[in-house]
């Protein structure tokens, strides 16, 4: 638990999934789990409902390997860079044991034939960039924390990635590949065979190994290579008479391979984003699953062979059927090559908007950790190949409560970039953005910043877009009526004003809250312009250094202009006096104003740590400081307005009330600050579901049992609080019903009684016969009511306590009356007995 008053830094999305292959749970039930490493966590995901069930945290470093316990399929081993192996019960999400190995663990392998040991890859002591495969004896002992120090080296000079080692059928041998060398170690014979390929890159070939996989039933090794070839090695018991055949389809490096359960099919994937299925090791028979969106990083196969999943470079997981049909995809924050657009909040959906797939804009919901949708901006086919200069999205801005969207795309060429400014209008009917205006080459050089003048009072006509460019000008774009009767749209955008200042490059622009002033920074100078006449009003300068960020204060602080410079100064100018109000020495990387309050967040990067400062422009003293926010460099920040102002107890954290800050690091991890503890944050329903599914009994028996317990505890008071608590009890039950996949539900007749029981009000002292009669009598009505209650319960999930209560009382009056009447009748006799 976190001490009250302290803010917790929460990683809430975008963690790299690239640590390890995903693992399917090996239960015979149709409901499967998919487990994958996500940053420091292991996520448990239900394959059928596409929901994240559990987040297993406990490692202090990146999780590098996860493997099911071969002797107990309900348990999972995970290894991490923090040097520990953890054994989890992934049904409950509880760590069973922790084995401390000591050195960094780079990969983990669990083999059924190894009785009580697992294999890990660790760096070799005393040598840099040399790794060895060791087996760790997992001592059986009481207690949670155990030492795993009994190491024995199996192979030396192995690759650091988990893809570079594979275990053969029944754990008889282990293969490791590195560069152009392949080594096979046979455990029983204690025989080590080494093979190497030609290092020469003849005919465009590149023989370096990229991954290795073993046939599940035969002595056959499949290796992927940097030039896209797949080699199938056989007869590798002989040092000389080994042989291999080659399959070649991929044009670039083969990222991962997987064999089917019987080994008759081989799956391969690479940068082409195509999953290739090879039949019978023949190069003539192959199937393809193309257009998977982004390069494939890992392929894993479920133990029964019915599903496979691919982990992609952009943190997406695709689940694929055995007949090579796309089944589902799990996508959180899509990792793009470079977030050039910044972190923008869509005013309409409150989603974070940033670069997604190449050329796309992703709308990411922070609440559900899901991508809402992806908007194709560039509208060109993206070719996954290194060295190609392609158009990419670099700037994005929303205007007029999200009805207008401006995007800038440019080619990756440094000199003479191909530039396009696009303006999109939100179409209410299709619920998506429609291209309105396209401006080719809006500036002669790169566009550095873009913003809308967004003022509610002035109406839509006042909507102005300002772009600044490295061609030393800023341009003002306005909407004009389209005079052409043929035109499909009534308005389009055109340039209205071009401003410049001493031929300096324009770097940033910003409108004041009321829209009357525009601040444009030209290298080291901030210029303030009147937005009506486009006159230069005044200039501010704080040498040395160029202006990195500028923003106007809001609400009570709207007379201030805040700027951050390259040389580590944060300056605040008073617009009324045209003088520097205060300045502070701070290396500000990100300057982000909260749109709903006067607070401004500044993130600094100092001595390899990011620190957060929240201040009001009116006061030079920050109201909140969080040093060591994280070890990664924070590149972007955004304030997402809350739907409801949060109740915050601490005076210090009042700035979190209206909106929630999000930070994006250079590893594209999304972080936020939370006043709540970890336990509170996790939704109780998902937690419960996981618990109950792991039990042999049905969820309903549990539900029933719990309900009865509850009844026993309840006292005779039948007032409003009781009703409320009833409802609270019912709602998870209902949710459970809705969340459980239909095919595992018991018959409706069985459900019915439980359902009704759960909805009935306790009848402690009634005789059993009476209750039974009444239940039957009331059954129909109760069912109707329950439906009604479901809906309300669902709706009210997020509303506050008070509202919930008020509404429920009037809704339930009918059934309530009946119950009350009944019980009143009973009560008299009962009291009389005393």
């Amino acid at each position, binding site marked *: 638990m976190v001490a009250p008053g302290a803010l917790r830094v929460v990683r809430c999305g975008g963690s790299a999934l690239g640590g390890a292959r995903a693992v399917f749970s090996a239960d015979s039930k149709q409901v499967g789990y998919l487990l994958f490493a996500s940053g420091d966590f292991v996520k448990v995901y239900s394959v059928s409902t596409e929901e994240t069930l559990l987040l297993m945290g406990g490692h202090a470093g990146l999780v590098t390997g996860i493997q099911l316990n071969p002797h107990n399929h309900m348990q999972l081993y995970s290894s991490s860079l923090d040097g520990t192996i953890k054994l989890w019960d992934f049904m409950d999400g509880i760590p069973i044991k922790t084995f401390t190995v000591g050195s960094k663990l780079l990969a983990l392998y669990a083999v059924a034939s190894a009785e009580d040991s697992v294999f890990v890859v660790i760096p070799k002591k005393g040598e840099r960039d040399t790794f060895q495969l060791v087996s760790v004896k997992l001592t059986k002992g009481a207690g949670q924390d155990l030492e795993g120090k009994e190491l024995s080296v199996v192979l030396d000079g192995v690759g650091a990635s988990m893809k570079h080692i594979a275990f053969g*059928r029944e754990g*008889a041998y282990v293969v490791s590949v590195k560069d152009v060398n392949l080594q096979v170690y*046979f455990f029983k014979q204690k025989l080590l065979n080494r093979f190497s390929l030609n290092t020469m890159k003849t005919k465009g070939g590149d023989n370096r190994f990229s991954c290795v996989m073993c046939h599940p039933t*035969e*002595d056959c090794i499949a290796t992927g290579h940097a030039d896209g070839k797949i080699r199938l090695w*056989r*007869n590798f*018991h*002989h040092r*000389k*008479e*080994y*042989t*291999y*055949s*080659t399959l070649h*389809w991929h*044009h670039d490096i083969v990222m991962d391979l997987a064999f089917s359960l019987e080994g008759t099919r081989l799956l391969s994937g690479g940068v082409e984003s195509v999953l290739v299925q090879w039949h019978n*090791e*023949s190069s*003539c*028979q*192959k199937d*393809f699953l193309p257009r998977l969106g982004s390069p494939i990083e890992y392929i894993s196969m479920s133990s029964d062979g019915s599903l496979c999943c691919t982990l992609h470079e952009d943190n997406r997981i695709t689940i694929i059927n055995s007949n090579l049909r796309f089944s589902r995809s799990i996508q959180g924050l899509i990792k793009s090559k470079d977030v050039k657009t910044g972190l923008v909040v869509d005013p309409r959906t409150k989603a974070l908007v940033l670069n997604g797939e190449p050329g796309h804009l992703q709308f990411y919901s922070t609440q559900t950790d899901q991508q809402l949708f992806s908007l194709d901006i560039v509208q060109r086919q993206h070719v996954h190949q290194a060295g190609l200069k392609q158009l990419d999205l670099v700037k994005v801005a929303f205007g007029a409560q999200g009805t207008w969207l401006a995007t800038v795309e440019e080619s990756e060429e440094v000199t003479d970039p191909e530039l396009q400014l696009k303006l999109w209008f939100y179409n209410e009917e299709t619920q998506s953005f429609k291209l309105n205006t396209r401006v080719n080459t809006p500036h002669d050089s790169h566009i550095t910043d873009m913003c809308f003048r967004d003022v509610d009072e002035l109406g839509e006509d006042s909507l102005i877009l300002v772009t600044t460019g490295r061609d030393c000008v800023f341009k003002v774009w306005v909407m004009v009526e389209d005079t052409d009767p043929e035109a499909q749209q009534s308005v389009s955008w055109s340039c209205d004003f071009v401003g410049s200042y001493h031929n300096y490059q324009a770097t940033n622009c910003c409108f004041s809250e009321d829209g009357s002033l525009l601040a444009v920074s030209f290298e080291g100078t901030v210029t303030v312009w009147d937005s009506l006449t486009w006159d230069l009003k005044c200039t501010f300068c704080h040498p040395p250094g160029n202006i990195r960020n500028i923003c106007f204060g809001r609400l009570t602080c709207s007379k201030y202009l805040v700027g951050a410079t390259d040389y580590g100064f944060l300056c605040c100018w008073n617009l009324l006096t045209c003088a520097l109000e205060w300045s502070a020495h701070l290396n500000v990387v990100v300057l982000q104003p909260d749109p709903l309050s006067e607070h401004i967040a500044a993130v600094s990067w100092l001595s390899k740590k990011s620190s957060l400062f929240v201040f009001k422009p009116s006061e030079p003293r920050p109201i909140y400081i969080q040093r060591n926010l994280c070890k990664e460099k924070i590149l972007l920040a955004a304030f997402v307005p809350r739907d409801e102002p949060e109740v915050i107890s601490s005076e210090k954290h009042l700035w979190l009330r209206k909106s929630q800050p999000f930070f994006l690091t250079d590893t594209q991890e999304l972080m936020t600050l939370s006043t709540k503890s970890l336990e509170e944050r996790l939704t109780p329903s998902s937690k419960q579901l996981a618990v109950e599914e792991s039990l042999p009994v049905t969820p309903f028996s549990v539900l029933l049992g719990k309900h009865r317990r509850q009844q026993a505890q309840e006292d005779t008071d039948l007032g409003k609080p009781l009703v409320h608590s009833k409802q609270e009890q019912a709602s998870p039950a209902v949710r459970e019903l809705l969340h459980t996949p239909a095919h595992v539900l018991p018959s409706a007749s069985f459900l019915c009684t439980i359902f009704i029981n759960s909805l009935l009000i306790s009848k402690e002292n009634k005789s059993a016969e009476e209750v039974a009669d009444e239940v039957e009598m009331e059954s129909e009505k109760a069912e109707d009511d329950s439906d009604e209650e479901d809906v309300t319960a669902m709706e009210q999930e997020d509303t506050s306590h008070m509202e919930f209560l008020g509404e429920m009382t009037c809704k339930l009056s009918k059934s309530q009356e009946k119950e009350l009447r009944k019980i009143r009748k009973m009560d008299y006799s009962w009291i009389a007995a005393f």
Partner: protein
Amino acid sequence: GRVLCLSWHPSGTHIVAGSIDFFRVIDVTSGQTVQRIMVNHHVEKAKRECVVWAITFLSSGTVVSADSFGRVQFWDWEQGTLAESHTVSTSAMLSLAVSEKEDSIIVGTSTGATYQLQLLPVKQGGQEKRWVRTKPFQFHSHDVRAVAHSPTALISGGLDAQLVIRPLMEKMQKKGYDAVLRKFTFPHRRLVSCARKARLLLFQFSQYLELWRLGSTEETGKDGEVLSLCRMPEHLVQLKSKGPEHIYCSCVSPCGTWVGYSTASRFHLYRVRCDGDSVSLRKVPKVPKLLPPAYQLQFSADSDSLFVASARGSVHVFQLLEPGGCKHLHTLRPPSGCSEAVYLLAPSADGHWLAAVSGDWAIHIYNLKCFKHHCVVPTYNCAVSALAIHPSTNNLVIAYSDQQLLEFSIPEKQYTSWSRAVQSRGLHRAWLERDSPITHITFNPKNPSHILLHDTYLLCVLDKSLPLPDDSTLLMNQSTLKQLPEMARKRQLHAFKICKKFQPLLFMDLLDENCLVVVERPIMDFKTQLPLPVQQKKFGT
């Protein structure tokens, strides 16, 4: 149906014959078909017919068929069941060969690719073995019509006129001549013969012969100059062989009046008469029937007799009679007997000696005056690629396929001292590492110490009077020698004078003291005549 291929069972009891859509197994003793297996039985709606292009009977009773669908299939012929089927390629399989141990198969396809299939254990120590397609090779541009599997190499020959020997590295014990990929475009045989006195050249093609008269010039010039001809080369006659058989060997007599050739079944002799511009060709009647026909033909230096190399190590001697006849004079046989045929002949210029090389690499020397066996050159463990008898010294110069050169004195029946010196010192390493064997040896009558040799890529004048080069010196030093001053040049001189100007070199002979004829056959000449290769998409599926 049409039979396209057949194979014997190693025990000799059955024959399997491949046809279109099926193959048959025939019992040898009864001559009856005992099994008939449809090869495309399980292919649904097979519109195209499936041609079994190659078939092999393994000793285990498995029949391996290669068909036009690109499949290699393994059948149990007694049950008539398909054991394994490998779709090796999308193009047709044309040829198939199995190794002696029956653990490896090579197949050739119509796209020029060859594939190896190996019988490998499924699990280590397990009994179960399975055929697995392992290595693909792409050495040919056209159909691979024939393949062979030696214990250490895969050999394939295709329509693109190439023979490729790809060694199996895993079977090689050490690096050496055998452990390198070899490609041959020209046969290591003499395809051109020259009538020195008449200045005629006879070219042997697969179905016909061409006789050409060489042009001549009266000018002289410096090195590198092209002299103008006073007489143009002239195509005298084309002699077409009858029937489908290929010409096996041919020869023109030194006087240019006799032309002989032999096919696989018949031997023909023609009389050529040149009267001014008109050329007449008349078949010599009543040529003695030879069974089997000639493996090599050679006229004597005085054009009086013809030597015909034949089977079992025998050489027939014919006497040529004017105006056009011939008579069987004698048959020379090795005294110990020999099972192999003679494939190289070398008569001496004085008509006294004849050297004959048979397939067991033994060189027999016969005395032609008394038709007696003279002696045997000590046998060396390599094939003889060329030999010739020196016109003045009667020394036999022998070139072996491993590039060794030996000189054997026929009168003294022993190696000459120069030959011993060469053996003790060893030849230059660059010489020994050459790819193609010496195919022809001739001598300079003006300078008896000069021996002229050539292979497909170089022409060499071997000067016995000069010191042999050692490994530290440059073997091909002609261009560097040219730049050196006179004195230094003398010091650098060594026995091998090599010219690589003419490639590929088919034939070279000295016409007279200052005239050398060289026949080049540019590879592009016949590459352009090849049919278009099978188009293959490199990308896309």
